[in-house]
């Protein structure tokens, strides 16, 4: 399989704080990588560097053969990386449906002149978006489709997470970055989320997923490749069982004394 995303020696400093320290890894087409690590370890910073929110202090990010280091976010999204946010960032005063349609921004083309002088074409484009968005909302778990004309801000927590994923998928990404998708979900909802991700992978065998998670139920479901980050550095990488058994990982999560107890 070919490499989709390649992170080479990426360092991200904020003043004296080293949020990412010489991080190197890559992910292949069609694979899932789970990233674990304590709070503040630099997991979300990693997503921000990949999506161009931050320009790394040093290092290189290559996606699908092109250097995207420090490229503006809209260009990164255009190339096929979509993400969700740890604390849901929905467009809360817009409807659920509109949130998903906005996710299609990079896959639609109408500009001001076309919208003004060729309203028919603009309307057809929107109609096609509505259809696609409704399909996306029907596919996932939960009943987002029934709630599609509700303002996104009024959704329950689990639905907010689901909507974030649907919106990210609307851009037809090659790489999906999920930042703690199971936050605020109960066990049943988490199981449904795992099933959603698994279904997504079987429907889109080319799609790669990087998953930041604290909930080991989710990580366990995608055990092929797990990476643990602590203080901005990669401290362990491998299968789920091996990483969980790694003493440095236990130390990072439980503290030195507990890990050796």
């Amino acid at each position, binding site marked *: 399989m070919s490499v989709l995303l390649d992170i080479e020696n990426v360092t991200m400093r904020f003043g004296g704080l080293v949020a990412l320290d010489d991080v190197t890894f890559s992910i292949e087409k069609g694979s899932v990588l789970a990233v674990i690590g304590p709070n503040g370890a630099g997991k979300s910073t990693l997503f921000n560097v990949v*999506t161009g*929110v931050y320009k790394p202090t040093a290092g290189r990010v290559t996606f699908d053969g092109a250097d995207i280091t420090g490229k*503006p*976010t*809209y260009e990164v*999204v*255009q190339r096929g990386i*979509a*993400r969700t*946010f740890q604390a849901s*960032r*929905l*467009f*809360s*005063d*817009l*409807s659920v*449906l*509109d949130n998903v*349609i*906005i*996710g*299609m*921004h*990079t896959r*639609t083309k*109408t*500009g*001001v002149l076309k*919208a*003004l002088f060729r*309203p028919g074409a*603009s*309307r057809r*484009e*929107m*109609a096609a*978006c*509505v259809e696609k968005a409704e399909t996306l909302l029907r596919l996932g778990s939960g009943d987002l489709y029934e*709630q599609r*004309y*509700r*303002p996104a801000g009024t959704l329950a927590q689990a639905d907010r997470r689901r909507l974030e994923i649907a*919106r990210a998928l609307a*851009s037809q990404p090659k790489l999906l970055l999920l930042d703690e998708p199971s936050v605020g979900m109960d066990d049943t909802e988490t199981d449904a989320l795992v099933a959603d991700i698994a279904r997504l992978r079987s429907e889109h065998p080319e799609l790669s997923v990087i998953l930041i998670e604290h909930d080991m139920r989710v990580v366990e479901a995608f055990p092929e490749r797990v990476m643990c980050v602590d203080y901005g550095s990669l401290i362990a990488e491998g299968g789920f069982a091996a990483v969980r058994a790694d003493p440095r990982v236990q130390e990072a999560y439980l503290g030195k004394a507990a890990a050796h107890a």
Partner: protein
Amino acid sequence: MGGSTSSPAPRTATAAALAILSQLCGAALLYAILKAEGTWHVAGLLALLGLGFYLLERFPWIGDFVTASLARVPLVTMATAAVIVLGFPFLVGTNTYVLHLLIVAQLYAVLALALNFQLGSANIPNFATGASYGIGAYVSALLALNLGMSFWLTLPIAALAATLFGFIIGIPSMRTRDTYLALVTIAFGVVVQQLLNNLDWTGGPNGLVGIPAPSLFGHSFASPLQVFGWTLPSQANFYYLAAALVVVAIVTAQRLHGSRIGLAWNALRADEIAAKAQGINVAWYKVLAFAVDAFLAAFAGTIYAFYVSYISPDNFTFLVSVTIMTMVIVGGMDNIFGVIVGAFLLTILPEKLRAFSDYRLLFFGVVVIGFLMIRPQGLFPQRLRHYGGHR
């Protein structure tokens, strides 16, 4: 509409009756306010208006039902609106003062719709709409006076010049946000007014005098309008011209609002970081909002210049920008109908309350603060978009 299931779908006959009736009521109220004289008369009408808004707020299904009816029979709605707009000057007759108020109100409606792209759709506080308005007026007036160009030719040129100005203020503004952005636009507005005041070729504080009236198919807009044996005062020419511009502004607003551009503006209003993560080039869309605002404002400026035939820097002060902003906030951000209502109310009411004219700035300040505290969404709040057959 939408998530609420309380409003029943109106039947076609009911909808048509309601569409005609509601618009006639609106026109009657407007006529009554225009004709009102004396503080008590105005106060009574204001109380009536307040009661109406209270009822709409208390029983939201009334508003939903009327809106649904209007949308149900678009042809009837548009025909009624056309009859009212075309017929209003006949009703007003020879009262040129009322016609003048209507022209100014319509121009302000266009300006408020222009600002609505920024303030309403994208939440960009632009205090330079008055400057774009002034640039439109000055460019067209200078072209007409110096080069003898016809009104119809200056209209697009002035709009393009102002759009360029929109880009010029848009680009540096993108480096700032929120309060600082507001300050940058205030500065631009003041700079433009000062330039108009101090440059020789703009006529300085005296402004430009003797802008020739436009003519269409040999009919000069300075002469009375004769239709089917009726004679309307010359202001009626400009009334219809301004009405046409309002229609253009509404169509522009609707088309942009309904396209992916309107959605992108709404997205960056709600959450800029999330908007970027959807692949929206936030800086470009903000600049675009400046450009569209300036484009429409310049149309209004051109018509104003040719209507009054005399312009000076005093017509395009910071206060004008504040007035336009007040109209958008009062009417309802990102609600086309609301913004127009806001523009009409805030043009006509200060005229009717002449006794308090010294306190006009205070009046706008109190209105804005009051609305932001009590009803930040404005008289007519923004509505969720609905697609296809869904209601």
